[in-house]
């Protein structure tokens, strides 16, 4: 294959990855399921999730309970929106924002030497703090969320252009 042909096929792959409707559907359902799964333990054990949020030491103690309840249900609502295909752009922007927030929170804890439990998918304090693994998981989730946002925004723009 010539260099020109390879460049063309690379461009077509990039174009597919940045514009595919079927990829958008797969990503929004996939990310939506991840957020629903992540929310289950937080909704069932909001008190234990509040303990984990307290350990992050980012929020003042006075508002930790409210923030824990809110965050657990934001994940539920975002998951439902993405799976149902309702308000996808807004939901995609929010899941990206949340993924960034999780990574910043974990990184702050990590740089301060706090071996805390992520609270990402489980509220069980468990045996060992796995901050590095949690960071990798959240990194992959952020990648999927950013990709989803790009596809959702482009899809909305294309549909607006088509309508015009």
């Amino acid at each position: 294959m010539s260099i020109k042909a390879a460049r063309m096929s690379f461009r077509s792959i990039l174009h597919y990855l940045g514009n595919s409707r079927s990829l958008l559907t797969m990503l929004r359902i996939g990310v939506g399921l991840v957020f629903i799964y992540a929310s289950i333990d937080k909704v069932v054990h909001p008190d234990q999730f509040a303990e984990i949020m307290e350990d992050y030491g980012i929020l003042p103690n006075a508002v930790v309970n409210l923030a824990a309840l809110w965050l657990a249900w934001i994940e539920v609502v975002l998951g439902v929106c993405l799976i149902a295909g309702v308000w996808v752009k807004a939901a995609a922007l929010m899941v990206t924002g949340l993924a960034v927030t999780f990574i910043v929170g974990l990184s702050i804890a990590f740089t301060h030497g706090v071996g805390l439990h992520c609270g990402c998918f489980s509220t069980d304090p468990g045996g060992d703090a796995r901050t590095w693994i949690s960071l990798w998981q959240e990194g992959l989730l952020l990648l999927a969320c950013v990709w989803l946002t790009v596809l959702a925004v482009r899809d909305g723009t294309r549909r607006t252009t088509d309508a015009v």
Partner: protein
Amino acid sequence: MRAFLITILRQLPRIAGIAVVSLILGVAANATHPMQLPLLVRKGQPGLPNWVSERLKHVDTQGAIGLVNNSQVLVIDTRDEADFRREHIPGAISLPYHGFSAHFPRFSASVSRDRPLLIYCYGTSCGLASRVGKRLLGYGYTDITILHNGIAAWRAANQPLETQEEFNEY
């Protein structure tokens, strides 16, 4: 970049809508949840419902000395296992907060629900004892006392500490 910012601005009402709906659902779910967390923590610690705070008793070191010497009372160390191995209050058993779910089945099988328990953790701001106390209340234990300021206060009062690698039997 500009188009991206415009998209965010256009989506702001929907983002606010998702945030408000989530907040309403969270508050409503909490009202029907057995834990019923106080929405704003005025005193005490996050994750601790008022009914748990009311049922957990607290003692200072002087009060704890009598409890430690009472063979009916089971003293529980909620710190990490490595810290327990280094030193602990004489006769204490290890039930670490980090690893509670792994240790609890054996604890539950050995300790009766009506046995008086004295729980402690690291020190001044440590809430691990209350967290473990909450879980034990949830599992039906009824007589739970927290040592105020934990092992730090015990050490400051020049009370004896035990050092052993082996764990005490329940």
